[in-house]
């Protein structure tokens, strides 16, 4: 993420805080607003960050991914049902990763091997995920009256989590903690390891990677599936960390916002994380607007992340350069 973009994010957050401060009802104290905004923002940022990291591995390898939504939705279902059957939340998370990676495998097969247009392939996966999870949730979950296995408990950092206002930062559920670790881990993997170098090479100039003896197809399959597994964790968040039930279409467009965060963040882990926080903050305000007594219709506040995404894509805050080979199937000579 460029410095200019980073300053822009800070300015946005500043503006957000200022707006809340001037508009909130005097009955709600600043501390309550801050604490509740912090808590909600962190919660909302988790699936966005995971989705963005998922998209990052995929797109860095040259495969466009508009299927993050579908991958997260199917993983949310997989995680729910396996956790419910086994009564093990950990097994649920693993199942989410497996389902996410499986959907990613389908995406890789369609777009890397069969060279189907990558946007079409992503659309197919989104439609498929919506259809299959919708059908199974009525046929299996509702008919068999399957009970969820509950939610992952929060892990608290002693002392720090008892602080006022900033306390919520230090008491989060495991997937939220894991997300922070994944941001750092993804940065290391992408920019410091051999595999990361190869993924980036394949996404920038696949024929160069091929000429250097690297298998473009294998690298793309691996990157897309790693991304799918991360999206799977993001999916598990919905049914194991946010609410203990599965609802059809419950990802509600988070996958697309995650894609926007990825683009905003310039296809880097740290950038994607910061962008996710910004989008999450806007979403948190949308949810909390009424509680804070803000006299602006919450739907108008709710448009903010989407409008912001369009503004960014239009290049108003500096150009974003995607990996050069995104969207192009590789055809060796």
């Amino acid at each position: 993420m460029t410095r200019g973009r980073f300053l822009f994010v800070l300015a946005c957050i500043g503006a957000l805080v200022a707006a809340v401060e001037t508009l909130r009802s005097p009955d709600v104290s600043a501390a309550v607003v801050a604490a509740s905004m912090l808590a909600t923002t962190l919660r909302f940022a988790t699936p966005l960050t995971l989705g963005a990291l998922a998209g990052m591995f995929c797109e860095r390898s040259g495969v466009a991914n508009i299927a993050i939504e579908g991958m997260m939705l199917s993983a949310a279902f997989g995680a729910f049902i396996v956790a419910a059957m086994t009564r093990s939340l950990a097994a649920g998370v693993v199942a989410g990763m497996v389902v996410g990676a499986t959907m990613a495998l389908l995406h890789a097969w369609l777009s890397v091997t069969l060279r189907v247009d990558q946007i079409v392939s992503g659309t197919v996966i989104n439609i498929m995920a919506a259809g299959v999870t919708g059908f199974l949730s009525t046929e299996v979950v509702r008919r068999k009256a399957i009970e969820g296995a509950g939610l992952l408990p929060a892990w608290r950092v002693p002392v720090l989590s008892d602080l006022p206002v900033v306390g919520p930062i230090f008491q989060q559920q495991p997937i939220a903690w894991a997300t922070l670790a994944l941001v750092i881990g993804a940065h290391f993997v992408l920019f410091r390891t051999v595999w990361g170098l190869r993924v980036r090479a394949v996404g920038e100039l696949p024929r160069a990677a091929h000429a250097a003896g690297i298998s473009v197809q294998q690298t793309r399959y691996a990157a897309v599936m790693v991304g799918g597994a991360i999206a799977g964790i993001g999916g598990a968040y919905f049914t194991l960390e946010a609410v203990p039930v599965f609802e059809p279409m419950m990802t509600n467009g988070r996958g697309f916002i995650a894609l926007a965060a990825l683009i905003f963040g310039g296809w880097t882990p740290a950038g994607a994380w910061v962008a996710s926080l910004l989008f999450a903050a806007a979403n948190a305000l949308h949810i909390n607007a009424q509680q804070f007594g803000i006299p602006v219709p919450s739907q108008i506040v709710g448009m903010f992340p989407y409008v912001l995404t369009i503004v960014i894509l239009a290049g108003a805050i500096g150009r974003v350069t995607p990996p050069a080979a995104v969207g192009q199937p590789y055809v060796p000579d």
Partner: protein
Amino acid sequence: MPPERPGAVVRLDAVLVPVLAIATALALGGVILWAAGPRFEGSYLGIGFVAEAYLSLLEGAFGSRAAIVDTTLRTVPYVFSGLAVMLAFRGGLFNIGAEGQLTVGALAAAWAGFSLDLPAIIHLPVVLAAGCLAGAVWGGVAGLLKARTGAHEVITTIMLNYIGGQLASYLLNGPLRDRSPLNVIAQTPKIAEGARLPDLLPGLHAGVLLAGIVAMVTWFIVWKTTTGFELRMVGANADAAAYAGVNVVRRMTWALGVSGLLAGLAGAVQVAGVNYRSTLGFNIGYGFDSIAIALLGRNTVSGVVLSSVLFAALRTGATKLQFRTQVSADIISVIQALVLLLVAAEQIVRWLYRLRAADAVTQAPEDGATAAIPPSPAGGEG
């Protein structure tokens, strides 16, 4: 890159692959139905159950006069929104925003229908025009941004879907909400009598006629006019179009604008012909369905019309299927997803049925010649 106007052999192929895809998807759907049914316990090892399910689907879609009317009514918006996606595709643009364009089209149409007080003869045209205009603006914004700044239309149209959704939620809960004490949901008042589409037959509004006319006009524009030629040129190779003197910015904006117009018209026709008002959430699923319809119809007008009938029939018949077999009507979404998968990746169908690839043109790479990258709607982002 497939040639635009394929020869006779390839044309047969163009019908065969979608038909085989549908058949295969129905077969796989049958397997799922079988698994959801009594399985080996049922008649003929459970196959009777599958047959009954599909028969009830067929009956629900075409089994009675009411069923046929219902299927036709569902076909109408699909034709408009399917044409919308198809037209954008022909211009090399992927309009995922039909849902948002349909939403704002319905909102504008409903507003014009209940708030304006006009003589009947112009009220209906005004209502439809309002829907078209709103949809065209919603699509045109994405087109303009794409053409001027390169902002990828896939992302911007998705974002505009959500903005449209928030806008609808705001307006239908706020300024446009039906304030009558009996109303408990987010919807507008009913539109004036004069703003409604007249019935052709009892229960079947004149939107059917309009869909037919719009389909023919779309075909004429895309294939017979210079505008359509420019559209297809931009879609097949935008660089060559610019080089040939086409104003690519204007044509792209036009393409997504007209695409949005058609989707907006779908929303307006639903308001003026079926619901007589705009209700929050009535449009869910149209966006993805219309992409599936355009792809299944291979981006041809006749293909879009036939696919619209198929999708409408599946959705209409699903109710009966669920009633008879107790299997969730969502099975239709699974079948649709399978159809789309098999059409998108037609290699799967070719492999399953041992069809030869349509190698109309095979060419050796030329030494030293730059390989052309086929322009796809999935070009670079940002």
